[in-house]
């Protein structure tokens, strides 16, 4: 076991093993830090920036930065909460999200964060980006309108040789997720299920499987995101 260290989050004293990422160390101490692109068990991407905290006047992502002895972490300040909210707002205006018609509604982390941050209407203008719905794959439906480009599918869905089934294509505003043709053809049911599970939104869905659990009884319908932590314990 690594050395135990002491650090603070909003002045509350916490202890954890040295070297753990701030999000994980915080959770151990009963403190929730909102995340979106982070996914248990896979290398953090640090791309959504929702988990931004401040240490020593500098912004850091809590999902990629390890805790260190004596670290003084600012989490719930007005500034930081507004920045997190802004990120989620941007995502709602970048993609095209019609929650009531989405299979993921109630299980969607983006939607859940929007409720948590009490977003009524985004401060940013809608971009109306034209995105495709790709239904060509026999097992999965890929709706790019809902993709938040978090790369969770890229990092988590790998074949037995460790190759990513999904990849990023292009750069800047043109980035989008691409499914490798060959690996896609041999996608197992198991991996298809996994892809749907890791996708925080309703971008990757398994075909012929919908609304098994009715809206109203889904994960975040029952317990808002971030509140689970306490029940988890």
């Amino acid at each position: 076991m690594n050395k135990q260290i002491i650090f603070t989050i909003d002045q509350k004293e916490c202890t954890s093993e040295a070297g753990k990422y701030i999000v994980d160390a915080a959770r151990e101490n009963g403190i929730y830090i909102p995340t979106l692109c982070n996914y248990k068990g896979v290398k953090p991407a640090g791309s959504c920036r929702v988990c931004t905290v401040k240490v020593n006047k500098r912004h850091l992502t809590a999902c990629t930065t390890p805790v260190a002895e004596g670290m003084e972490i600012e989490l719930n300040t007005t500034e930081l909460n507004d920045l997190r909210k802004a990120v989620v707002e941007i995502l709602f205006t970048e993609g095209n999200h019609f929650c009531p018609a989405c299979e993921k509604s109630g299980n969607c982390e983006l939607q859940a964060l929007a409720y948590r941050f009490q977003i009524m209407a985004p401060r940013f203008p809608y971009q109306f980006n034209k995105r495709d719905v790709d239904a060509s794959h026999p097992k999965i439906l890929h709706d790019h309108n809902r993709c938040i480009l978090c790369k969770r599918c890229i990092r988590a869905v790998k074949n037995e040789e460790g190759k990513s089934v999904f990849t990023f294509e292009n750069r800047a505003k043109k980035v989008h997720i691409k499914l490798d043709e060959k690996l896609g053809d041999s996608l197992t049911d198991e991996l298809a299920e996994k892809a749907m599970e890791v996708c925080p939104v309703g971008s990757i869905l398994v075909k012929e499987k919908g609304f098994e659990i009715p809206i109203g009884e889904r994960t975040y319908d029952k317990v808002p995101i971030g509140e689970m932590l306490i029940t988890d314990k």
Partner: protein
Amino acid sequence: MIENKIQKILDKFNRDKTRLMDILLHIQSEIGYIPQTLIQPIADGIDLSAADVLQTISFYHFFTLKPRGKYTIYLNNSIVAYMMGREKVAKVFEEECGCKFGEVTEDGLIGLFDTACIGMSDQEPAALINGKVFTNITTFRAREIIRDMKQGRKVEEMFATTFGDGKNASPLIRTIVRNRMKRTGPVLNMSYKAGNTLLKQVAQMTPKEVINEVKLSHLRGRGGAGFPTGLKWEFCRRASGEKKFVFCNADEGEPGTFKDRVILTEKPEMLFEGMTIAGYAIGAKEGILYLRYEYMYLKKYLEDVLDRLRKNNQLGPNTANIKGFDFDIRIQFGAGAYVCGEESALIESSEGKRGEPRNRPPFPVEKGYLDYPTVVNNVETLCSVVRIIQNGGDWYRSLGTEESTGTKVLSVSGDCRYAGIYELEWGFTVSDILEMAGAENTLAVQVGGPSGALIGPDDFNRTLCYSDLATGGSFIIFNESRDILRDVVMNFTEFFIDESCGSCVPCRNIPTLLKHKLEKILQGHGTEKDITDIKEWGNMMQINRCGLGHTAANPVLTSLKNFRHLYEDKIQKTVEFDSGIDLAEAVAESCEFVDRIPKF
């Protein structure tokens, strides 16, 4: 046939997936593009998936899956190119070719494409044509160039002028590019004797002594971030790793910067000597020069220099007769991505991947290239090191100011009589430089390129140094005839929109939102709210991962700070809200169709 070629290229790089950049560059230079049909064979050859290969290809500006013409013209679209008449030149190209930028002529002969700053801001408008640089293009020249292409002439035969100054005329370069070294100082002056420092001095020193001398000099990185060089080397030396690497960052993508290009042309021995000294200091055996694609015309020349150094024991087994110090250098080319100048993106790119910056920690000095401890330094930093070892850290520290020691090489361009590079001791003011460069009626200066600051006359008495106006060297001058918002700020903002790697949510989105705000204001639809939005949204960029995202709003934010009146003048004072939509205009077409005149 082609299949054979591919297999040969794959073998040349040992079917090593981390060499994907080189593999793709080779294929593209053989065929002119990367045919879709080859993606799967390439992927199979290096044990990647086709999508993996595609994700690298699609990241870089110069890689293409479609033919871009027998002759491909990449015309620079940086701000200085526009100031020097790019628009007219572009129009002639389009007229003569009968196609638009972004397209290829129907017969596949000529392709016209835009490209970001190619490091020729002192000789714009400039273009890369099949890898060769054409500078100072006039409408007359543009017509000639297309005529020559239609006659099927070789690109090398199309130079109308004699070759450029200095080494640009040497047999292995033969380019019309000019160096314009307006002023050299203690680092770049003529007194340099290649190899002396390494062979006579470094060979007598321990790595620790080398690092101490660099620390004593207080040298800070010249690539922009200004990290103390000696300290970086010490961290890397101390980091544990079976191997270590030295990178020279010659990506030089900041618009308006071209000093590294000049150093690479005139003093490559000095740069390689600096890399070797760094290698000795940190305990590395391999150095990699990451060179931007735009400088491909220097490839043969630089490889020849490396060969010569190997023959002179300045590289290779027991370098400088230091037992066991087997240092060598290879060149890694990029393929067109500004963000690859960011050190961790540069490393990713060198590993054959998309140039996406990494999360830090870990820093490259702990975990860099192939996860080994790595030092990344700018071209100018490494050259300065040679002089520091030669003359001592104390000597170097006596130059410049107390906290910004030594010299800085500036790339001066824009509205002035004497564009070119200037090596000056730190501590000079903006006015000094304007005077030196023969600039008159100056309205604004962009210090440090688009990622730096746009300043006006009130700030011209400020000094260039790390504690006041820090700079990586780009210095672009705008006179009173220029439209700051419409031309300058817009151009820079578009640059950042295109160059974001696309990972971080704010970096991928906010610059575009700022551009739309700016357009709204320029169209007369702006209100006070738009100005406060710009400020608030621009400040959100600080939560991005890398320096590109941190600075991408700077053109808007610094112009708003230093030229606020330009914004104020254009907004509506009595209107609180304006949707930005001209309703009459938006519905004009449909109104005409139904023959109705709208009542507003």
